[in-house]
């Protein structure tokens, strides 16, 4: 696809919240344009009645009618963005049902979001970028095999990772905490090059992802600079060898979490949460620090404990930590406390994010936190399923980048195929 991606907006409240401009700006930043499906009053009455969900707000009725017009093909769009006010229960029900309805009845990529007046175009950018990538770059995302010699760099909020792949095999990796974005990237690239035994000028294509993707991408002259939602999905199904059929990818990161449903390696719906640190890898880092162990020891420690023995009164990173400290003071074992911390993060992700995507098995956990087996265990308990953690799951973003970048070797592109 060339030209602007046309994103149909189904919404209630963005103008009166003062955020419509932010939505438009986020779309413009990824060469997309928002539009509001043109619909008649008669169609609104008809479509709303036929859909069967009772809503009292006329703008939600309008959103329902527009969704139906999109699914039935009366309106052309490349993608759908559903947005309603945060804290509106009626809107939350409509938002979820419309997302599910569009996902199940059309090929349109869809993302839903609940905003406040504080929502900025920056907050929406990654979601909008992923939405337009799915619409625009299906040919690129269809790639299943890595070819040639490529480098992928994931510049995350907590850690920077690099992977070098040659002919569908990982031959070098690097991992460092993110301090100065470009310097950390240089360090991990040097580590990966050393392990792989190759020089940087031998690399045929470079891809970058993560929070620092633009800066690092420019620094390394990357051919692919891509948000982490699509890249991680691709990396997850590639490493888990689940490139065909459905899957759900969960990535609990240092600063935000992602839950993505995938079909044949291409993301369908996704949520990205970043409001609460208590639901992030940071909380587990703080717990490990309080227990006096390295983060790598927290998972095995949690597996020996029982989360039910420690009452957690809050999901908050501050008050949740207080609950853990109180439990230790009351005689709880470090193992039980470690398990309770893992349970707390898993529960919060389950309650706040996984309710917004339709879980399809296999569930694949990726990212650094997927190495904390206590967290994986608690998530599996909550979802009542065995969670798949692929090998090298901490390098998921870098692998996804190296895989996709191989489509750009020698100046050609998968997209031109």
């Amino acid at each position, binding site marked *: 696809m060339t030209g602007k991606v046309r994103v149909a907006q189904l919404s209630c409240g963005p103008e009166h919240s*003062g955020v419509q401009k932010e939505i438009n700006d986020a779309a413009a930043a990824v060469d997309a344009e928002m539009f509001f499906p043109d619909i008649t009053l008669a169609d609104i009455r008809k479509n709303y009645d036929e859909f069967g969900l009772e809503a009292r707000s006329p703008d939600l009725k309008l959103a329902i009618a527009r969704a139906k017009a999109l699914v039935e093909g009366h309106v052309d769009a490349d993608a759908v963005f559903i947005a309603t006010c945060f804290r509106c229960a009626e809107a939350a029900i409509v938002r979820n049902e419309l997302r599910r309805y569009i996902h199940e009845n059309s090929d349109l990529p869809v993302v839903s979001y609940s905003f406040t007046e504080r929502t900025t175009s920056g907050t929406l950018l990654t979601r909008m970028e992923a939405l337009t990538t799915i619409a625009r770059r299906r040919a690129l995302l269809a790639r299943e095999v890595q070819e040639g010699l490529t480098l992928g760099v994931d510049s995350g909020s907590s850690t920077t990772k690099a992977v070098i792949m040659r002919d569908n095999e990982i031959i070098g990796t690097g991992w460092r905490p993110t301090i100065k974005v470009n310097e950390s990237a240089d360090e991990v690239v040097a580590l990966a090059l050393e392990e792989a035994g190759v020089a940087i000028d031998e690399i045929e294509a470079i891809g970058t992802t993560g929070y620092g993707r633009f800066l690092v991408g420019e620094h390394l002259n990357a051919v692919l600079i891509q948000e982490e939602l699509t890249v991680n999905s691709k990396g997850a199904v590639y490493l888990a060898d689940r490139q065909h059929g459905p899957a759900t990818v969960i990535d609990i990161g240092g600063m935000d979490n992602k839950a993505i449903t995938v079909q044949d390696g291409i993301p369908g719906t996704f949520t990205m949460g970043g409001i609460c640190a208590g639901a992030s890898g940071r909380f587990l880092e703080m717990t490990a620090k309080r227990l006096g162990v390295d983060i790598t020891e927290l998972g095995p420690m949690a597996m020996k404990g029982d989360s039910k023995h420690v009452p957690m009164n809050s999901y908050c990173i501050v008050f949740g930590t207080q609950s853990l400290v109180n439990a230790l003071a009351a005689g709880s074992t470090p193992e039980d406390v470690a398990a309770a911390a893992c349970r707390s993060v898993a529960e919060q992700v389950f309650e706040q994010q996984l309710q917004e995507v339709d879980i399809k098995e296999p569930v694949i956990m990726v990212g650094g936190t997927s190495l904390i087996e206590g967290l994986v265990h608690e998530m599996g308990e909550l979802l009542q399923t065995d969670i798949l953690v692929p090998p090298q799951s901490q390098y998921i973003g870098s692998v996804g980048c190296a895989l996709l970048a191989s489509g750009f070797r020698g100046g050609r592109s998968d997209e031109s195929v």
Partner: protein
Amino acid sequence: MVKVFIYPTTSLILSDMVERWGHKPLGAALQIRERIQTPGFDSPPLQMTPEDPKRGLRYAAVEVPSGVRGRMALLGPLIEEAEAAIVINDADFSFGCMGCARTNELVKLLIRHRNIPILELTYPRSEEEGVAFVGAIKRFLKGLGEVSA
């Protein structure tokens, strides 16, 4: 001349009737066209900013959705200014339509608590009801004229 708050605030017909009987309509008269191409039914004519929902905190607490507070930033001052009100319940989309049901509940509550003359009617569904509907509005508005004179 009495300042009459109208609900739905977007109703062009209601606004016109109030003006025709010599009063000042307080609302956001907006033509609801047969085709809806805007984000919502009552899309504001001017760009609102994130400051508007903050101004709406005067009428609704911070836990109330931002869309409600943004609307209240526009409608709250009109409710405070009103000397009378006409409220039409269950109106057809084409008569005038406000996008958010929660805002509508709050607007009606605040206007009912103003202790000013209020005419509350249900939107007519037949010609006979329509005649009675217009007659009731006319009598109410004429009565306001007598009170203010």
